[in-house]
């Protein structure tokens, strides 16, 4: 038992040491999406912000739906996601304020190399997949990507719940795990470009549809309403939002590249009024 207590004492010391750093540094908690984290953008962007302001940013990376829920419960200071209708509803219901648009990237359809659905019309491609009953792997996790995918099925006039038996697979997981599943099944899935470019286990998959205007994917950032949750760090959160939408922040976003390819396109508008 003695060595065990020794080890625990060390553990306790480590833990209290980490509390010390917690207490010393000013930080904000940001609920964001797996696409920003898994694409590597945050690993590039946030150190630049911390260096300039001394504010540490702690990112909880989940799907857009869950990120907004975390904000609704007051468990973060800032929400940074991609689902405009849901974001507007979030602000409308008084959960968030100061919403700003930051950047966009685009969705792509990835699928097997010998694919019948390629082209530049996403809705037509979805129809072809349904006709061929080719395996389609869906996020099904209330994320921004999932909602976009469901919008495309709607535009195609198809309901995967009724016509999808045997080929439409709802995995209820993040973008990475969904790509892993699609790679294993040699099936189709809708992905954001950033996660795809940073994804290593591609097997036989490649991009089959891209460039359709409907595939544009807008990211927005907003502060959790401090009137509702006094624990929200308004000053620090605003600094983060202002930096993201400032010329410096926008340029940093545009500079992030994987293999020479730009992932996110800054498009913040100056505050009106």
């Amino acid at each position, binding site marked *: 038992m003695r*060595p065990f207590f020794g080890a625990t004492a060390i*553990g306790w010391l480590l833990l209290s040491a980490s509390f010390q750093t917690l207490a010393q540094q000013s930080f904000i*908690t940001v609920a964001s999406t797996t696409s920003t984290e898994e694409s590597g953008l945050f690993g590039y962007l946030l150190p630049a912000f911390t260096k300039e302001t001394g504010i540490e940013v702690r990112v909880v990376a989940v799907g857009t739906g869950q990120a907004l829920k975390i904000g609704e419960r007051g*468990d973060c200071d800032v929400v940074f996601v991609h689902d405009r209708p849901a974001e507007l509803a979030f602000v409308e219901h008084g959960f968030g304020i100061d919403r700003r648009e930051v950047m966009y990237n685009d969705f792509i359809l990835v699928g097997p190399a010998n694919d019948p659905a390629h082209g530049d019309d996403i809705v037509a491609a979805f129809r072809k997949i349904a006709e061929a009953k080719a395996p389609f792997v869906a996020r099904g996790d209330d994320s921004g990507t999932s909602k976009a995918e469901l919008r495309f099925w709607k535009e195609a006039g198809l309901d995967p719940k009724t016509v999808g038996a045997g080929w439409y697979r709802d995995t209820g997981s993040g973008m990475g795990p969904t790509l892993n599943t699609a790679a294993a099944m040699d099936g189709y899935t809708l992905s954001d470009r950033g996660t795809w470019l940073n*994804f290593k286990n591609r097997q036989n998959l490649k991009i089959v549809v891209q460039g359709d205007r409907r595939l544009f994917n807008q990211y927005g950032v907003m502060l959790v309403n401090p009137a509702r949750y006094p624990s929200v760090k308004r000053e620090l959160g605003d600094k983060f939002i202002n930096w993201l939408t400032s010329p410096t922040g926008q340029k940093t976003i545009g500079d992030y590249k994987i293999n020479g390819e730009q992932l996110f396109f800054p498009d913040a508008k100056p505050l009106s009024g």
Partner: protein
Amino acid sequence: MQDIANALVAAWDLVLSGNSTLLGIVSLSLGISLTAVFFASCIGLPLGAALAITRFPGRNAAVVAVNALMGLPPVVVGLFVYLALSRSGPLGSLGLLFTPPAMVIAQVILVTPIVAAVARQIVEDLWREYAELYLFDGVGRVHTICSLLWLGRLSLTTAVLAGAGRAVAEVGAILIVGGNIAGVTRTMTTAIALETSRGDLALALGLGIILLALIFLINGTAHFAGQAVRRAAA
């Protein structure tokens, strides 16, 4: 096979590089889990011993309950702690969500039943052997519990190690209450989950191999320390 070879290479490279991120993740993992096991033992060992030597109505139900709670699903515990610590929850004002203490709390809940259940079995066996002695001498309950725990200390290491194994290997609860924040709440298991979702399977498995090596190290240390104690006592 190629994948597994790559994983071994990745693990080896990580260890050799003396990567400070890896060091941080490993020490956070150990810090959280060992702290949780410490508190769980403080609660679980006396609780198990008390359950072993006392007789009261509903005792069987209590024993079954403690045994069943060994199978607590981590995700459910994580969700429960999340809702309790959330700003909208009863303990929200503490501001503990997405911090290491929240992860310790979740793991204490997971580990305590394991320590208590195994301790109950070990102490009950001892009690069967020595009950008459204690009863004859009229030793008080609290004193009996302390004495039996001391007597069974070498076997009880197993109870503690079983708890430690659960804590170090668990991912479901700490992912929810910690949020897997880089440098703050990212542990070995949550890092493995992240690398898997990034599709970097070699790195994920490499981290897994390092985690496994750590678990072996902890158990080896406990085993040989126990032997040393036994030799010293002989």
